[in-house]
């Protein structure tokens, strides 16, 4: 294995940064290779930042957070497909935090287009903007972007490495490269003899990289197939290493308590009882909280709970009602954005029936199964960090700042993530672990949060409200005028990352509301930002998580007002607007045997959301079982264009749906006295085995552009359930969670 973290000059840019339409963002900078973070040791060759070959074999780097979405396997498959190596003969590592591992797809997502109507020009522009990700060292796993990002670049990395190895073999054998082939980690000579890649690696490293054409999809051996996931054996035997499993010689265990009045500071604390408790080594004053270092995590938790702390108040209204009153006030201010304004919503079409509705959804916690934790070792001039995280370069920058070090002095080791959902794109748990480790120089310290600390110190999905006005005429929607209000998680995140207040139109706030593929002639969507200081962040599917509920519950209400079947009502508006979206609706209609009629005791609802480039339709069926309502079945159809691993896509689709149903049924973070009122799973429950529906997923592949998989399954689940509950009971609920309004099975 190469020593990591230093920079070698010899590297090459994978793929060109072709600029379309004359847009140029510093051509020199974007075409200059990002430094290769892999420093090959003796007898090793790093052909590019994604392929390392040494005497032990081939190592591929998949520098994206593996949090359950299968990215490690599919990313490796993209490289292996062109490199001609067997997946069971290689090692796949996450690798260090490095600018070379920037995400090209993330920035393109920020363009103010709807997505589904993207032209080839806009698509290319987004690709070109992707290079900004490199300039910003945007090594991030999020926004359902990994496959869009890696699809071309990683195949090019594999192909170029393969051709360079062949060139080295050609020079050794005195033949032309075109006479050679490759198979299973070997170059095959014209006489059939085989040279293993490791034997060629040192020679290949001396050559200029060779460019290569990508193979036709018809030749693919891995992509488009169901591959055995590389992490599956480890995760079935307890041997996969999560952040919380990192064990180092001489390691100590810590736990932390921060102000439950979020963002408030600490007045004082009394640690006299804690200091004498068993196993306790040190109490650490973090300034805005306290930590205890002990010989055992549980002993550390006991002791940190025994510290008496006086906290300052939070900088937001202390009660939930006042918080939502503040969100509602945002409607009175001018909008932050109006990203769709078709026709004229100011004029009611003659003969149309008007309908209005107001919806409210609560704050939500991420509640990853693995509580926040990280391990750090501080040795004065260096800091090593271990933990699951979704943004290693930002984490490196943040913990370097906390430790008064340069980024180069911080080494980030990214483990498996016991759930991310957006939470592990934050840095607080890394910064806290760093501060604790700095109090114990030369001792590795793992800082683990109790579940209660985790639940009560999240960057929550913001609570949100929508005011929707629409009109139907002759069985069709002719007007939609929607407004959403919530805190801006984008502006907050920008401030946390850069230190400067975020500004400008927030597309995330209105995504899922302004960009739905319905042909409605008068259609306006505005976003209003509520001025509140509650910590908010990116929660699986982000703005779509509330806007999907708002838009699709309202579509259902309009369909019923129009006297139409809610599936046909949507389909009619969608067919001319975006065929792949209509295809998803038609698929769930067929899969579920949708007739628009349900017998007594059965309710069915349909919903649709286009998000992260992927249209998803869902039908959910609920049953009344002696007064208790159970979610019985679900049908999902999605279309992301090309599904690189269909079974992994299916897992993301039903997993995303269940994550959304958990929130729809039970999820609510509420506030009293400035503190979050939920502590642990008994008061923030989720779907479990007995409350989970039977599910069938169909993966369509007609979309022209590649869409994401990790998030699009979440948004339509909540309105589909609400629409099913309406079908069953006749009761329309416009406020989540549903358990507050229905007797759901728990």
């Amino acid at each position, binding site marked *: 294995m190469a020593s990591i973290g230093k920079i070698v000059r010899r590297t090459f840019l994978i793929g060109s940064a072709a600029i379309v339409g004359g847009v140029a963002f510093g051509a020199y900078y974007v075409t200059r290779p990002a430094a290769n973070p892999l420093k090959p040791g003796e007898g090793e060759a790093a052909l590019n930042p994604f392929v390392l070959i040494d005497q032990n074999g081939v190592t591929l780097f998949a520098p994206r957070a593996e949090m*359950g*979405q299968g990215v490690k396997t599919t990313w490796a498959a993209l490289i292996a497909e062109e490199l001609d190596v067997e997946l069971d003969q290689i090692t796949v590592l996450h690798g260090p935090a490095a600018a070379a591992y920037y995400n090209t797809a993330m920035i393109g997502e920020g363009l103010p287009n709807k997505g589904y109507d993207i032209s080839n020009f806009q698509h290319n522009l987004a690709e070109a903007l992707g290079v900004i990700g490199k300039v910003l060292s945007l090594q991030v796993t999020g926004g359902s972007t990994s496959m869009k990002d890696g699809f071309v670049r990683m195949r090019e990395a594999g192909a170029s490495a393969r051709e360079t190895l062949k060139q080295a073999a050609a020079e050794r054998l005195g033949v032309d490269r075109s006479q050679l082939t490759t198979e299973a980690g070997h170059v095959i000579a014209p006489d059939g003899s085989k040279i293993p890649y490791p034997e060629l690696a040192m020679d290949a490293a001396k050559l200029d990289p060779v460019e290569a054409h990508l193979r036709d999809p018809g030749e693919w051996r891995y992509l488009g197939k169901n591959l055995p*996931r590389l992490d*599956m*054996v*480890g*995760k*079935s*035997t*307890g*041997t*996969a*290493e*999560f952040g*919380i*499993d990192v064990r180092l010689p001489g390691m100590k*265990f810590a736990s932390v308590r921060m102000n439950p009045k979020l963002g408030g500071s600490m007045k004082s604390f009394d640690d006299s009882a804690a200091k*004498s*408790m*068993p*196993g306790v080594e040190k109490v650490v004053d973090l300034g805005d909280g306290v930590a205890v270092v002990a010989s*055992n*995590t*549980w*002993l550390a*938790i*006991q002791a940190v709970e*025994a510290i008496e702390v006086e906290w300052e108040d939070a900088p937001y209204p202390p009660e939930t009602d006042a918080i939502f009153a503040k969100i509602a006030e945002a409607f009175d201010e001018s909008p932050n954005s109006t990203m769709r304004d078709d026709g004229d919503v100011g004029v009611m079409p003659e003969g149309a029936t008007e309908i209005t509705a107001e919806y409210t959804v609560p704050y939500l916690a991420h*509640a*990853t*199964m*693995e*509580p926040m934790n990280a391990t750090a070792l501080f040795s004065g001039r260096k800091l090593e960090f271990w933990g699951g995280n979704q943004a290693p370069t930002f984490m490196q920058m943040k913990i370097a700042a906390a430790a008064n070090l340069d980024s180069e002095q911080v080494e980030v080791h990214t483990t*498996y993530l*016991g*759930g*991310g*959902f957006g939470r592990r794109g934050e840095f607080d748990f890394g910064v806290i672990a760093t501060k604790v480790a700095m109090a114990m120089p030369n001792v590795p310290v793992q800082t*683990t949060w*109790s*579940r209660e600390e985790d639940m009560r110190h999240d960057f929550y999905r913001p609570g949100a409200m929508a005011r929707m006005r629409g009109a139907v005429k002759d069985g069709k929607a002719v007007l939609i005028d929607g407004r959403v209000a919530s805190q801006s998680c984008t502006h907050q995140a920008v401030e946390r990352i850069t230190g400067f207040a975020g500004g400008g139109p927030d597309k995330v706030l209105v995504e899922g509301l302004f960009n739905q593929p319905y042909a409605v002639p008068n259609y306006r969507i505005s976003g209003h930002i509520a001025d509140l200081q509650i910590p908010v962040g990116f929660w699986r599917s982000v703005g779509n998580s509330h806007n999907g509920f708002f838009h699709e519950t309202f579509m259902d209400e309009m369909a019923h007002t129009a006297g139409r079947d809610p599936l046909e009502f949507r389909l009619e508006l969608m067919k001319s607007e975006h065929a792949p979206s209509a295809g998803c609706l038609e698929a769930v209609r067929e899969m579920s045997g949708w007739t628009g009629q349900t017998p007594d005791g059965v309710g069915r609802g349909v919903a649709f959301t286009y998000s992260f480039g992927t249209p998803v339709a869902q039908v959910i069926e609920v049953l009344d079982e002696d007064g208790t309502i159970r979610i019985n079945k679900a049908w999902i159809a999605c279309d992301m264009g090309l599904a690189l691993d269909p*079974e*992994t896509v299916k*897992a993301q689709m*039903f*997993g*995303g*749906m*269940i994550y959304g149903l958990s929130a729809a049924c039970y999820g609510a973070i*509420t506030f009293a006295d400035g503190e979050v009122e939920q*502590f*642990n*799973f*008994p*008061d923030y429950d989720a779907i*479990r*085995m*007995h409350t*989970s529906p039977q*599910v069938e997923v169909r993966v369509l592949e007609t979309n022209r552009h590649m869409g994401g998989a990790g998030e699009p399954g979440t948004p339509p689940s909540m309105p589909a359930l609400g629409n099913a509950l309406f079908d069953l009971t006749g009761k329309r609920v416009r406020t989540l969670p549903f358990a507050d309004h229905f007797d759901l099975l728990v």
Partner: protein
Amino acid sequence: MLTLSINYVSNPSFSGDKRAMATSLTINGTAHQVDLPDDVPLLWVLRDEIGLTGTKFGCGVSACGACTVHIDGEAVRSCQIALSDVQGEVTTIEGVGSPDAMSAIQRAWVAHQVAQCGYCQSGQIMQAASLLAQNPAPTDAEIDEAMQGNLCRCGTYPRIRAAIHDAAARMKEA
């Protein structure tokens, strides 16, 4: 909403010099001597003292099942068993099978590609193994009953169910 009494708050606090004598434990067939206070939960003995990290911390209040182990073959939540209350042989996920020698249930888990983030799966497998030991051919309703204490935020339930049925078939053939 439920009001939650947090386990570790309700525990009696330690007196400063209270140190237990070494306690003997048998874990996965190996004897261990542990020098920790009596009321340290088995979970934290396994993870931080013995170094068996396959058993996971999820909630600390017996609400998620991530910490499930067997004591004399029965599934228990190791976050709720104090060190001094451990009577019997402890089996953890590491004792069920290893990557090179997986048990039938682990092979079924791999065959069905159950895990997503994977953090809860040790506990899921330990709970399912206990179910299958008592009931070699569980129905869907029996799986619901046995597995509802094990939370999975990734929502892998459909594949857990399929893997349990498959493991039952594999164990019948064996």
